[in-house]
Structure formats: C-alpha cells, structure tokens
C-alpha cells in the first residue's frame, strides 16, 4: 500500500478579499480616533464656556479611553477584528513618516546617548527578569519571553523569540498578556509620574522610550506628555527595537546549546530577518529630510500624515486591550512582569536623570 502523505491544503487568500476584510476594522479605528480628536476640541471648549474646572485631555487619551470602553463593555465584534489588528501597520508607517521631523545630526547625537542607555537597560532588565523568574519558579522559557518582552520591545520581541527558542504557545500568550496589561498601566502612570517629578520633555521622552515595552504604548505615553517627548520616545524605542535581532539571536544560541531549540545556521541572515525594517525606513526619511529633499511645507504634511497614522494606532491600543481576557492568563507571570516593570522603570528613571546631569541635554 502506498504511503498516504497528508498535504496541508493551501488556501490562497485573495488579496482583494483580504483587503475587504480589514476595511470595517480600519473604519472603526478611524471613527474612534477621530471621535477622540473631536472630544479634545469640544470638551475643553464646552467646559470653559460653562466655567467648569476640567483638565485638558488630549486626543491620544480620548482615543485610548474610547477604545478601552468599547473593548471592555460591548467588545469588538468579529467583523472588525482583522482591521483593528492593522494598528501595528499604522504605527510603523507613522514612525517612518515621523523620520521627516528628525535631522540626521539629532539622531546621531540623541541616538548615541540613547544607544548607551538602551544597552544598559537591556542588560539590566534581562538580568533582573531572569532572577525574578527563578525566584517565582516560572518555566525557564516563560522567563526568557518575559525578559525579552520587558527588555527589548514587547509583543514583537516575544513573537520573534518564541519562534527562535521553540517556546510553547501558552508561554507566549502569558508573556504577551502580561506585557500588554503592564503597557496599558504605563500609559496612565508614566505621564502622571513625569508631571509630579517635573521631568523635562527630553528626560521624559527618553524614560518612556526606555521603560515602556510596546512601541505603540511607548509612542502613546510620549504623546500624552508632549509632542517633543513623543518624538524622543519614538527615537529611543526604535533604538531598542533595533536590538531585537541581537537579543533573540543570543537566546536562540543559548537554548540550542541546551538542546531545546534548533541551531542557528547563518547568523547574519538571522539578524537581518529579525531586524525591524521600519527603523531603516525612519532613518532613510530622516536622511532625505536632512538633505532638503522635502520643502518645509512638505515636512509639515508628512508630520500631519504621521499624526493621522498614530491616531489610528492609539484607537487600536484601546480596542485591543481587554482586561477580562488578560485576567484569565493567571497571576504569576503578571506579578513577575509587574515587579520587573516597576524595578526597570525606577532603574531607567535613575539612568535618564543621571544622563541628563552628565550630558546636559
């Protein structure tokens, strides 16, 4: 009898169909984001007209709050989900376009400082999270995922590492849930702490970029403080993102040496595969802006386009955060993540304050 080989059915997804599937969710992102923008403009004016004391809440926070409200009350219906998931796409496109507002000299100066701080942050965060994972008796691969998620760049790093070290789906779900829940908390606590400590825009931007794990949350946490802080938070976070390949490679080699993951063949190809392309796109646009490829008006148009892309991102951050789902993932990984995040936040705050005094930026 001939062997029967089960060939998985490859169902080619029609690009047109795929495009149609994301439309409702993108419209929802746009509607929530735009509602946030309208609320920013109108609530403040209404409160002023009626002599109410009401804090000026920016569109960033309104968009996130509206998204959170929908996600945690009526929920996001299935028809919108694939479109809502495109918020990562808008985030990365927005970061590339934001490159037009950076001159290469600024990137080299701030990038140099942030690269040093990022290296210290990554080393410290990985060491501390590993220690914490051992203390709480978490599975070693779960500890690795939490360490990478909090040291480098949240969900993307966890997904990249999961594949490289053959971690369980359950472990990666735990880590992603913990990192997302803590990212949501950081959105509300970081700006508050920044204002209480009277941090400068630069110091706060550096801190948010260093300590907030997910790129979307780091961008939002920066934008909640000020425009200047947002720019710097994106730059520092992108520097952290650029490190993803090196950290994942190191873990892949470690787990392969333990016989618990596939060996890495071509290391250069591995690094290139994991390198975030949007960082290159961001640098390329900033090179073009530095050499006056765009006029002043065009840079303004690119910056506004970047803001629109971020508006959709912030709406997506709220819409994809469901606290009930996160609670289901269990307390221990969350506790490890929470303790780790608090320590990393305090550690990076010390680093930033020290660097500000040392370099006087």
């Amino acid at each position, binding site marked *: 009898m001939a062997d029967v080989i089960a060939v998985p059915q490859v169902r080619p997804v029609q690009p047109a169909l795929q495009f149609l599937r994301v439309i409702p969710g993108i419209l929802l992102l746009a509607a929530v984001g735009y509602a946030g923008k309208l609320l920013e403009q109108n609530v403040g004016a209404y409160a002023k007209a009626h002599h109410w004391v009401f804090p000026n809440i920016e569109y960033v926070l309104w968009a996130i709050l509206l998204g959170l409200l929908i996600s945690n009350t009526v929920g996001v219906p299935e028809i919108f989900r694939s479109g809502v998931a495109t918020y990562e796409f808008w985030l990365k496109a927005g970061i590339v376009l934001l490159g037009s507002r950076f001159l290469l000299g600024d990137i080299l100066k701030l990038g140099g400082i942030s690269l040093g701080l990022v290296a210290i942050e990554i080393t410290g965060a990985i060491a501390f999270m590993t220690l914490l994972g051992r203390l709480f008796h978490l599975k070693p691969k779960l500890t690795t995922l939490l360490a990478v998620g909090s040291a480098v760049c949240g969900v993307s790093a966890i997904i990249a590492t999961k594949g490289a070290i053959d971690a369980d789906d359950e472990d990666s779900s735990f880590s992603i849930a913990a990192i997302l829940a803590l990212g949501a908390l950081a959105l509300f606590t970081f700006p508050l702490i920044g204002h209480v400590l009277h941090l400068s825009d630069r110091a706060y931007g550096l801190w948010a970029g260093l300590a907030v794990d997910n790129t979307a949350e780091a961008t939002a946490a920066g934008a909640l403080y000020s425009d200047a802080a947002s720019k710097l938070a994106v730059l520092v976070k992108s520097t952290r993102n650029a490190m993803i390949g090196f950290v994942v490679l190191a873990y892949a080699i470690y787990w392969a040496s333990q016989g618990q993951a596939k060996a890495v063949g071509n290391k250069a190809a591995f690094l290139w595969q994991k390198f975030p392309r949007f960082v290159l796109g961001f640098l390329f*646009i900033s090179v073009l802006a530095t050499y006056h490829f765009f006029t002043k008006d065009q840079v303004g*148009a690119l910056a506004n386009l970047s803001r629109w892309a971020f508006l959709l991102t912030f709406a997506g951050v709220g819409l994809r955060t469901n606290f009930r789902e996160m609670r289901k993932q269990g307390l221990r990984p969350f506790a490890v993540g929470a303790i780790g995040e608090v320590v990393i936040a305090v550690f990076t705050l010390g680093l930033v304050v020290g660097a500000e005094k040392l370099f006087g930026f």
Partner: protein
Amino acid sequence: MSATENAVTTTKKWILSLDTWAVVAAFVAALLIRVGVFKHVPW
C-alpha cells in the same frame, strides 16, 4: 518539485512582512507629497 510545493513557493515569494508593507506605504505617501499630488495634509 510538486505542483503544490511550486504553488507554495510562488506564494511565499510575494509575502512581505507587515513591517515592510508599512515602510512601502510610508515611502509611497512621502513620494506623493514630494511630487505634489498631496500639497497639504490637514490636522
């Protein structure tokens, strides 16, 4: 190589990461602004 494998390989060649699509979309938008198709983007 079987027909199925061929089909899979051909399909895979065209799959770009979300990252790359985002960069392509941003570059196209920047180019359209540069050549003057979009002169002003309001906020």
